[in-house]
């Protein structure tokens, strides 16, 4: 285990707080579902557990891959759908 990850963690939190200031309220929901899809990155850990674990770890990993994939695919697609509905007056 690598304590340097703590360094990355703290920097990434600060980066996130700087990155997303002043979001217009019409983007609140897409920002939530879109960022939620990003949190599906845990799929990386799930794939490893499902692919190289023992029996129990494989079972847990497979459920984790399923849940994370729902999160990723559902999150990106629903965000895409919502953003597709936001139209300016001229193309409405």
């Amino acid at each position, binding site marked *: *285990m690598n304590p340097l990850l703590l360094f990355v963690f703290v920097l990434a939190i600060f980066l996130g707080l700087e990155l997303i200031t002043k979001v217009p309220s019409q983007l*609140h929901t897409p920002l939530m579902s879109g960022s939620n899809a990003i949190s599906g*990155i845990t799929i990386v850990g799930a794939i490893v557990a499902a692919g190289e674990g023992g029996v129990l770890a494989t079972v847990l990993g497979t459920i984790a*891959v399923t849940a994370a994939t729902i999160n990723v695919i559902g999150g990106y697609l629903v965000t895409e759908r919502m953003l597709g509905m*936001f139209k300016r007056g001229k193309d409405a």
Partner: protein
Amino acid sequence: MEAWQTFAYIAASILFITGLKMLGRAETAKRGNRISAVGMLIAVVATLLAGGLDYTWIVLGLVIGGAVGAVAARRVQMTGMPEMVALLNGSGGLASMLVGWAEYVRSDDLLAFSAVAIVLTILIGGLAASGSVIAFGKLSGRLDGKPLLFSGQKVINAALLAVAVLAAALVVAHATGAIASGGALAFAVVLLVALALGVLAVLPIGGADMPIVVSLLNSYSGVAAAAAGFVIDNNVLVVAGSLVGASGLILTTIMCKAMNRSLANVLFGGFGATISAGSAQMEGEVKPLSPEDAYFILEAADSVVFVPGYGMAVAQAQHVVHELALQLTKNGAEVRHAIHPVAGRMPGHMNVLLAEANVPYEQLVEPDDVNPTMETVDVAIVIGANDVVNPAAKEDPGSPLFGMPIIEVDRARTCFVLKRSMNPGFSGVDNALFLKDNTRMIFGDAKATITAMVAAFKEG
């Protein structure tokens, strides 16, 4: 980890950062979402190609999860979006929790640091997962939306938290060999308590506070992914998870500010359940109006502001609202939709509904934009909103809503309130707006009422 894999994860991280930044601006949001999706694809492919993996179960999970996610995203109604977001938060939290669990099962000797990371992943992931399930239940109406409070709630939560910390310490102690046995039992306790805490944390929170809960759970699902990154020693999880955690936190803060309340007050307050009668005496009388008479006032109006609330979502009235707006525009009026940040059940709920109905987003305005011009507004039409237009927030220091920024429709020349009955809003606070001289109440189903107004315009 091979060098190429490290580079792939760095590329993914950069795409997530860029994508998230672009997602925060209207002009770039769509591209931002796609850029972040490409980052995810790169991370997944890099993981799959790492070698030494048995693909059988991975593919099964990917196929099932992909199918469920795609179907859900296509089928969900815009009015059902709060539940959908809750479900997505929950699946992310669950996945992180399971990753932590699987790593615990498969490692024989854990270092203290890893063991701490595992219990944190289980706690945060489990809380996000079970909390989201309860939020889903409340948002979809399967559970009662009212705050559920019972005596000793805080004591039980505090005790459970203490048990979780103790059990977590035992897991770490066992992993590092400080104690010989009991590790598995302590681990099971951590798992169960995490799930129980999620349930107990969301149950006491009522419907109108849901925007805060949903954005907070969003934040948790991110932090859980970051914690899982510590468990499997992977930077991309830490970076991506932290970004989501931060963005969820920002949204949560925006929601709290829009209600003039602290986060602690929302989480522990059980708002709406404890409030007794308001301090100010209500004076005046209710002045009902028929949709047909409302038409004559609207017909003469030059400036109209719609103020939608959760009631518009319930009545599915967004499409007829747009139709009425079109009629008003054709009649020469300037039409705007004023949206309060906490209107509805999740951040941005009203924006999504109106976008679905093809309302161009230039017509959507925030309270700060519309309030200074309120004197020049001929008609403000409140549709199923209540607390966000309650003048007590400005006038009555004794009101529980006092200090909350509102849309000041009471200052418009005329105010129509579309409402089913005279029942108070979610907070249980009476609304003096309904009795003001310039307010007209139009009782009945919002959709039917507005449809009648549209019909009057078409005939007129």
